């Protein structure tokens, strides 16, 4: 059920990317899709009643293996979040340059891009 809600959020982002014609709205759809995918990957590794994957002093190791959540998706998502910020900056700079050249954010008005 929670996975389906996550997928619903992804679908909202996909709808925004496909249907809207404002350029910033398309960027916003991409950002929503990124959030949904990151959230889904973290939810895959969750264990009910688990602890964060940090070894604390006085921990029994066998107990820790049985109660920790999955550290692997967390490590992968950590890099993905920072990369998404860099790519957001690149996309926004492309949008700003396009606005300066054509005077609008409307992708249907940008004639020379129309195939």
């Amino acid at each position, binding site marked *: 059920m929670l996975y389906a809600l996550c997928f619903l959020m992804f679908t909202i982002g996909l709808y925004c990317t496909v249907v809207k014609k404002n350029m910033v709205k398309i960027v916003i759809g991409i950002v929503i899709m990124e959030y949904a995918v990151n959230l889904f990957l973290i939810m895959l590794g969750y264990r009910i009643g688990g602890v964060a*994957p940090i070894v604390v002093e006085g921990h029994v190791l066998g107990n820790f293996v049985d109660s920790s959540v999955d550290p692997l998706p967390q490590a992968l998502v950590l890099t993905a979040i920072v990369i998404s910020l*860099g790519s957001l900056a690149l996309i926004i700079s492309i949008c700003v340059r396009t606005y300066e050249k054509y005077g609008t954010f409307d992708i249907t008005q940008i004639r020379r891009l129309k195939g």
Partner: protein
Amino acid sequence: MTIFYILFLFMLVAAIIAVETKKLLGSVICIGAIGFGVSLMFLFLRAPDIAITQIVVEILGLIILIRATIARDLTFISGDREFFGVVVSVVIVLVIFLAGVHIFETLPEFGTPIFAETTGSASQTYISEGFQKTGAANIVSAVILDFRAYDTLGETTILFTSILGATVLLRKKSRKLLGEVDA
């Protein structure tokens, strides 16, 4: 468990408002609301590293987005694309959603991770031997900088390249050249 449903309700409402509102500034602020909801969700999912990173990245991303859109609401764009294209797109998105929901039924139940049931999986090795092999008590740090450091090397390259691209696109010299051609 109920906290997850409440946070998801909050995020879905914010997402719908962000998609459907007319003003760009309001839409960007709703993106911030979704980001903070996601950060809280990470905290409740026992991932404090990612919660810290998400909440800080969210603030910087909001500053970038607002800086880019705040003076540019002059041309008021509303509505969607042509009618036929919109209908086809919505049908395709609906089909993707209805087909995808059935796939999620084959996954294990929420709260029972896959790595716990398979013996000898990579995550079990990281958890049980990570502290002895690297000396780092935070297993996530041990994974991103020791076991899977190639990932981090590639990530640094991607960040370097994307920032280089943004800087080159926005610097003064190229702007002057293009401006003369446009006028």
